[in-house]
């Protein structure tokens, strides 16, 4: 496994060749297709519920289904842990994940880039919009103490960061961004229950367009359920998911400002 070598769409792990056009899960044997799933059924615990769970797993495309645990949740609910082998595979050579295009720069490199290519401080406004009160993602990117040992945007001498905090109305965010002549707007959405973030993110784009400010600004959203693909679809320049570090966001913004001639 540690000897994996990538060449011509083939991976050579030790003695074994993986066909990247037909990739299947690895449990303890190559290509065994092993998967684990768990779910609750609204059925009283017992052999019949176990059999129902097994049949359901079978319909999900699993072979060799083993119901390894059945637990009585009371009130005619049962919880199952199931193992099986998937009968499906995926063509990994055809997988394409849209990503924002930029080069990640280090702290000093980024400050130097802004000084040299933009010639003034980058103004970035960030907020958790709508009813969202969870600032953890926004703070990780913006607060000076940052995340995973990396300073947030507030810590960059060449970035002027305004963190508006939580539960900011889209109107307020747009007004502040125009007021501060922002180069970039960061929107964090953590609460995504019932897809509440979609109309909220869409509304922001519409408001920026109505104000004629959309083209003047780099618009970025982030959150645990945000992908770049979704962000672009909603009219954002980039979307950043969980684990994103402040330098990534800073680098994207700086390079996008230069690329679009917004400096």
């Amino acid at each position, binding site marked *: 496994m540690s000897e994996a070598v990538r060449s011509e769409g083939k991976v050579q792990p030790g003695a074994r060749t993986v066909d990247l056009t037909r990739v299947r899960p690895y449990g303890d044997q190559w290509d065994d297709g092993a998967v684990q799933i768990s779910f609750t059924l609204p059925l009283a615990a017992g052999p019949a519920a176990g059999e129902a769970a097994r049949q359901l797993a079978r319909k999900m495309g699993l072979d060799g289904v083993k119901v390894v645990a059945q637990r009585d949740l009371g009130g005619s609910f049962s*919880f199952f842990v199931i193992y099986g082998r998937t009968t499906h595979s995926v063509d990994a050579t055809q997988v394409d994940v849209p990503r924002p295009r930029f080069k990640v720069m280090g702290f000093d490199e980024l400050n130097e880039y802004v000084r040299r290519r933009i010639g003034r401080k980058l103004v970035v406004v960030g907020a958790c919009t709508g009813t969202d*009160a969870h600032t*953890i993602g926004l703070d990780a990117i913006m607060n000076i103490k940052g995340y995973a040992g990396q300073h947030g945007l507030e810590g960059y001498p060449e970035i002027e960061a305004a963190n508006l905090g939580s*539960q900011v109305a889209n109107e307020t965010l747009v007004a502040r961004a125009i007021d501060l002549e922002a180069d970039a707007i960061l929107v964090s959405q953590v*609460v995504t229950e019932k897809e509440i973030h979609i109309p909220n993110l869409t509304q922001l784009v519409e408001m920026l367009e109505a104000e004629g400010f959309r083209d003047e600004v780099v618009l970025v959203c982030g959150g645990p359920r945000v992908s770049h693909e979704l962000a672009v679809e909603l009219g954002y320049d980039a979307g950043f998911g969980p684990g994103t570090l402040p330098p990534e966001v800073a680098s994207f913004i700086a390079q996008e400002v230069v690329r679009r001639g917004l400096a």
Partner: protein
Amino acid sequence: MSLRIEVDGQKVRRARHAAELVTGEVQEFIGRHTTVSIERTVARFFGIDGVDGDGVPLPNIVTENVRAAGQLGCGVALSIARAMDYHDLSAQEVAEAVSRRAIDLGKVPARRDAQARQLAAHLAAAAAKHVRERRAERETLLRQLPPGPPPLLYVIVATGNIHEDTVQAQAAARQGADIIAVIRSTGQSLLDYVPYGQVSGGFGGTYATQEHFRIMRAALDEVSREIGRYVRLVNYCSGLCMPEIAAMGALERLDVMLNDAMYGVLFRDINMKRTFIDQFFSRVINAYAGIVINTGEDNYMTTADPVRHGHTVMASQFINEQFAVRCGLEDWQIGLGHVFAMDPAQPGGLLLDLAQAALTRAVFPGCTLKYMPQTRHKNGDIFQSYAIDALHDLVGVVTGQDVILLGMLTEAIHTPFMQDRFLALEGARYVMTTAGGLGDELDVRPGGKVAARAAEVLDGAVEMLEHVARAGLMRAIEEGMFAGIRRSRDGGKGLEGVVERAPDYFNPLMDVMLATNHAGRSGAAQGGARP
């Protein structure tokens, strides 16, 4: 009954004294003001409920009507009673007439104010009696259906639909939960009214309405009888409607209320004056209703660094405690919150958490401590998450916490599925079984790392509280001393709802409840029993 740790009693007394000074200054301010939500609460206790054709709650309409007449500084009690006396109507009929614009409360003749005052006092006494009856009902049920051995296990339901919530809550009770919290819809704390009736479509939680309280309490009563164990119900006395939610909870026999003195200021950007005034009456009501309040210090560690700011949690606990004492809450009703907070990557993090948990237990021996899991360092890796929660449960058990809020392995993904709660309860039960009695066997080694950390946290709390006592609480919050969040005294939401009391301010509910609470507290101090 738990891990023993040496605590410097002199420092604890210094911290408590400083917190007494801190809250005393604010209390003086509180005593000179009322708020729209306090007055709406009085209207509710007088029996005013329901909404007008546009969905505006009648308590809001009545309060705004009194306000428009420039009389809100006197409170709504006398205005409502005057109209009842003059027009010979019930409080509800008065409210309906105000909503139809058939009565303007500012224009009712004040000729018979002695009678009106008496009528208001009578209405307040009747409401108070009703609340006492609900309290007695709880005490009876707790005797008939006693809870299991401590700690009590606390889980959350949050489906957004009260009828789905009851299914989840009953299942959790059958699986061993002792306390069920119905999470509120995100954003409800910023509404300056309480939604009415059955309201679906909450986000990340379910709207708190009196009807929802009633539905959930009935569902829990049903399952409590089925399993022979009284299951407690929790909601959120926070946001812009703290006292109204307290009133609704008192009337519908909720058992526990999230009710922090500063949470709304820090984490919801609610104006601090509004929150301080509101928290007082809300806690007076909770005290009277026999409800346990829970404070929210766990939230500090979502924004501040737990290694460097552990003492801010304890400082806030002292402040919350002293605010609570001023409302007449007995010690057992003061449910101070704290949290298993360390980054899993922090070397020796468990020692730091253990130190703070044991210290908190030792400093607040009579309080109902609630120990919470961290959410900050969780991600979609449910297996890692489950391991973190097991260690949280272990620290909670070993240090003798009264209530353990159970972490969910899917914490960072979604509001809990039924199976998530089951797994959390099963994990906690395993820890309670296998580690039962462990705390009794252990002493914290004097001079060791745990003892040193506990001393450091207590020292930090004393220093911070003495600083806050010199600066004043409002200025300390402006300086960002709590959770690293700065709020200005005239900023945030809800300041427009603060009104200076007139010399003849009249709130008969406050009068009757506060007197009883303080009598109860001093009774308890003389050896009264915890129900």
